[in-house]
């Protein structure tokens, strides 16, 4: 069973516009969420996180929003840049340090 779901396998956005990546989860016990970014032939790198006690966390061009009642989180990138083109993974922490990942969304930023 897929506890963390990213239903959009790909997304294409014009440079300078906002990119919105979505993630849904099923387990209400998840209390910490992360976004990772992955370039081809490289491992994922941590981007931004959010605790369930918050509904928003911002870091520069990246903002993560959490809607606990809907079990939904989203990553906003604004303005989008060509270097943002990558696969983005949403992950949840169910306890200890194990991460439960979504399937990933491939973001392409068009010049």
């Amino acid at each position: 069973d897929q506890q963390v779901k990213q239903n959009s396998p790909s997304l294409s956005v014009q440079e300078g516009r906002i990119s919105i990546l979505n993630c849904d989860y099923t387990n209400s016990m998840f209390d910490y969420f992360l976004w990772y970014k992955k370039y081809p032939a490289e491992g994922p790198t941590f981007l931004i996180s959010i605790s369930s006690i918050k509904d928003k966390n911002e870091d520069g061009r990246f903002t993560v929003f959490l809607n606990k009642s809907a079990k939904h989180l989203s990553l906003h990138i604004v303005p989008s840049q060509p270097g943002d083109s990558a696969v983005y993974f949403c992950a949840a922490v169910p306890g200890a340090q194990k991460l439960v990942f979504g399937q990933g969304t491939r973001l392409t930023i068009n010049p």
Partner: protein
Amino acid sequence: GAGVSQSPSNKVTEKGKDVELRCDPISGHTALYWYRQSLGQGLEFLIYFQGNSAPDKSGLPSDRFSAERTGGSVSTLTIQRTQQEDSAVYLCASSLGILAETQYFGPGTRLLVL
């Protein structure tokens, strides 16, 4: 090197053969994780080592999979009698702290079982 390294980067094997995948974590990192990403799937947790504690093997999909970590550093993931469904990218990560975002990932080993 400064980061997590994995070898080989690519491995093609025949069904039924055994394979060993290696992970060199960042020096000093006490925790080491193995994940895999099958086609169209997210990263799936396999096993977690923390210091000298017994590893958390709860994610290993079958008894054909095993892993060990020697001397608290290098780890080897072994898959015996490989099957085609084992084809995936196997990722290793290491961490020093207790926060999940401090996991640093290696580039992965792409395994193809024919």
